[in-house]
């Protein structure tokens, strides 16, 4: 077998990007197929149900559950105001009435004769979904959202924190292996996405946060610094909802790892341009990786569906080593031996032979490389 399947991160100068922009619940789509939208445009809106407020009327009135309906003053579906009477007993000769008032504005959802409970819904909460990327609406999913497509330069990160942002890129590292220090970050970077090289330490991250940087793109980050920044250890790899004031996209991994040249050079070409970026990462059950998307000029008819397939490792493909030793190094596949090979840990694995950029030839488990795809 001269081939095998591989996972890989996309780094591409020119690709079709499709983004589904879906409401959390059914609602109203605000655009139509063929519309040209920009990243900030609202494409769909909905109203999330308000908080449910349960009140045990039977207990409050001091009656059994089946008697509640006798004293109820509202009906299921009624709109109610705060302080409005929900139920009231007749009392004795019109006196000593027990009264239950609504603690909230909202709607009556359910009145139960089995439990004597009334469920009120607080007012609905509006939710808007924005386009996130400039592009064309290529599909409308009725009542749910849209699919937006564009042609972009596109970089997938390996890990990130923080949500969606749209901001201008400022490459402050001079080389892909530079460790950018705090003194290089200043007020000019406010509202921008800064590109650092190999690594960014905690003090530099804090400086970026202080001056109001919107986002950071870095090759590596120390897990200890991340823990300090978040105030907790990330257990399960589901991120993107952190509220630390900025979005961080890590392109290579944890520890000092030089940013891949291709990624760094592409980011340099984005200098001064607006990009869409997010840190959402989910490794399990529905892989989501952080993305950096810079739209490029295109005509609508250039957009076409792509046939998805798993990248294949083959002789001649450019790969990146994603585990020690040689972690982060780039090489070219020069051999795909068929037989199982015993590596230093004594694990028997399928390996490939790669020639690293230094000219050194090494055997690497096939599972420990990723294809640098276009």
């Amino acid at each position: 077998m001269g081939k095998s399947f591989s996972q890989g991160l996309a780094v591409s100068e020119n690709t079709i990007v499709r983004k589904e922009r879906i409401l959390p619940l059914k609602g109203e789509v605000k655009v139509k197929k063929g519309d040209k939208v920009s990243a900030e445009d609202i494409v769909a809106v909905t109203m999330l149900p308000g908080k449910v407020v349960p009140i045990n009327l039977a207990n409050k009135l001091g009656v059994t559950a089946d008697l509640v309906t006798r004293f109820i003053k509202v009906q299921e579906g009624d709109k109610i105001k705060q302080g409005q009477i929900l139920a009231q007993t007749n009392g004795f000769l019109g006196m000593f009435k027990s009264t239950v008032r609504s603690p909230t504005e909202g709607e009556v959802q359910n009145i139960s004769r089995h439990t004597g409970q009334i469920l009120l819904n607080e007012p609905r909460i509006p939710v808007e979904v924005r386009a996130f990327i400039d592009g064309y609406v290529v599909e409308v999913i009725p009542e749910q959202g849209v699919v937006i497509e564009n042609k972009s330069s596109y970089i997938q990160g390996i890990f990130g924190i923080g949500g969606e942002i749209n901001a201008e890129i400022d490459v402050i590292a001079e080389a892909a292996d530079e460790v950018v220090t705090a003194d290089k970050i200043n007020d000019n970077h406010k509202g921008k996405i800064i590109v650092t090289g190999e690594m960014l330490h905690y003090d530099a991250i804090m400086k970026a946060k202080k001056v109001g940087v919107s986002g950071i793109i870095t090759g590596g980050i120390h897990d200890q610094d991340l823990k300090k920044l978040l105030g907790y250890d990330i257990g399960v790899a589901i991120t993107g909802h952190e509220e630390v004031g900025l979005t961080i996209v890590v392109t290579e991994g944890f520890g000092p790892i030089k940013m891949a040249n291709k990624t760094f050079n592409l980011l340099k070409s984005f200098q001064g341009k607006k990009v869409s970026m997010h840190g959402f990462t989910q490794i399990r059950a529905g892989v989501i990786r952080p993305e950096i998307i810079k739209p490029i000029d295109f005509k609508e008819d250039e957009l076409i569906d792509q046939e998805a397939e798993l990248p294949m490792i083959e002789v001649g493909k450019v790969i990146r080593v994603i585990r020690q030793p040689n972690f982060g190094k780039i090489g070219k596949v020069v051999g795909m031996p068929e037989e199982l090979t015993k590596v230093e840990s004594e694990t028997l694995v399928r390996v490939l032979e790669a020639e690293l950029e230094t000219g050194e030839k090494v055997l690497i488990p096939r599972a420990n490389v990723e294809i640098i795809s276009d």
Partner: protein
Amino acid sequence: MANEQLRRIVATDCGSTTTKAILIEFVDGEYRQTVRGEAPTTVEAPLNDVTKGVINSVQELEELAQLKYNNKNIKFIENEQIIIPRNGDIGVDAYVSTSSAGGGLQMMVTGVVARMTGESAERAALGAGAIVMDLIASNDQRANYEKIERIRHLRPDMILMAGGVDGGTTKHVAELAELVAAADPKPRLGSSYKLPVIYAGNKDAQDIIKETLADKSDLIITENIRPTLEVENLGPARDKIHDLFMEHVMQQAPGYNKLMQWTRGPLNGKLQSIPIMPTPAAVGNIMQTIARNEGIEVLGVDIGGATTDVFSVFKDKDVKEGEPPKYIFNRTVSANLGMSYSISNVLASAGLDNILRWVPLDIDESELRNMIKNKMIRPTTIPQKLEELVLEQAIAKEALRLAFVQHKEFAVTLKGTQKQREISEAFSQTTSGETIVDMMSLDLLVGSGGVASHAPRRHQTVLMLIDAFLPEGITRLGVDSIFMMPHLGVLAEISEKAATEVFDKDCMIYLGTCVAPVGPFKSKGPALTAEIELSNGEKFTEEIPFGEMRLIPCGIGETAKAKLRPGRGLDLGAGKNQEIETTLWGGVVGIVLDTRGRNPFVLPPDHAERRKLLKKWMSELKVYPEPILK
């Protein structure tokens, strides 16, 4: 004699990371597992179709089978589909599959009293192979609005509602139904169908439940899980969960509609559809079969990338002598303890010190943290450097230990599919159920899952199992050779014979036996005196001081006669200071004599002293190559 219709079978397990395919063939009068292939699972974007990964893994099987038999005519796939039935070299007689891809089966359960009906519902769901996302109970201390928010937020695949004994009050269970209805929960996968809700509570509340939930959910009503306080009846609810898993959840997962058409095999003389089984349910089947067939108590663990499942089958100690034994099965799943996706959570849960206590090397904290996170974000990588293997196995010990703690806490009293208890006992278990996990009476400890099955040396698996579970007295150890218990668990549905034969010959690898005296060691003499005679007549006499490990070579299939005398105050299973004469089983590793202590087992807090001891034990057990232990 084999079923003539069943000579070549393909079985797959669609895991969260990889799809593993095995080929089982009837060769020379018996069923054997012959080749194995794997490929990345493809339930996620961009492929969104589980069958692609299945085809890729079966394609590898096909190529390997062609190589093995030097026969290019062997073919399993045509037009991107598995060929059934077989015609000579073309096709297979049956194709079966398990699945835990896409996060497996995720459920929420409800009960009136958390420790009674709630726990019964949890047991039913876990036994059916689900991950229980939350247990909502009338008495769980949360306010009703918090419960509603939680139900709304969870988006499970299905809900199992229990609560109340038959004939009891209906109020609480009605209230829970109202909360579920108010939350109007949506299923995790697919928005076009209603969330399945199984009601298995007080039968007198069935009409109220229908009134409250029939319009808002896909309501299924089944027998009460706890018809009376002292009877637990899990079977009907478990069956409904399995039906719904196939009908609803699998239908929604990408590509499963197609896969469900593929899983077919001869049953009762006809080619029939064979349901896809949740992976843990299949492993649970196998564990129970081993226990019943051998008449032993079994503890098994399956440590995966995302989750760790612990299974136990213990004998009901209340059964009177002379009566046939009753087996109590328990399964727990630690949803966030695993070796890839969840590896970082092992660090967060166990703490760095607990991981480092198993590492014989001087490791920088920052380096270890980065390594763990890198494994999390690139879960399919494997340790190439020995040092990284040592670290991964140290993390595995902690993942296993924590999963076992959870298991012991859950596996308490009133267990099993149907169990009668005295009313007084039923009341006592509501406050403090004692664990039924008894490490001293345990006969067999089995490891499964990547880190256990694929350890480069089986000795490493032995030490991982011993350190994590701390078996007491005399315990046989085993490992699933290449992780095929799930495949065999579902295969048993069409051929118990094929599953059993492959299990005995190719799946279960006996590692050996662990002998560990229990109790606080106070005297100065030996902690264990062992006279062991191997089947070839070779004799070993050892007086082992406290705090040591010894490995006695005794091969697979071999036994040794042993006279074992615990040190003063210690117990090997027959009571304090009592000598035992027994037969010990060998294995690919051998007999391990472990006098490091049980109840308590304590490692020296001083780093240097501890590392020295770890190296000594690892060297004695031949766990790692000598240079790294120098």
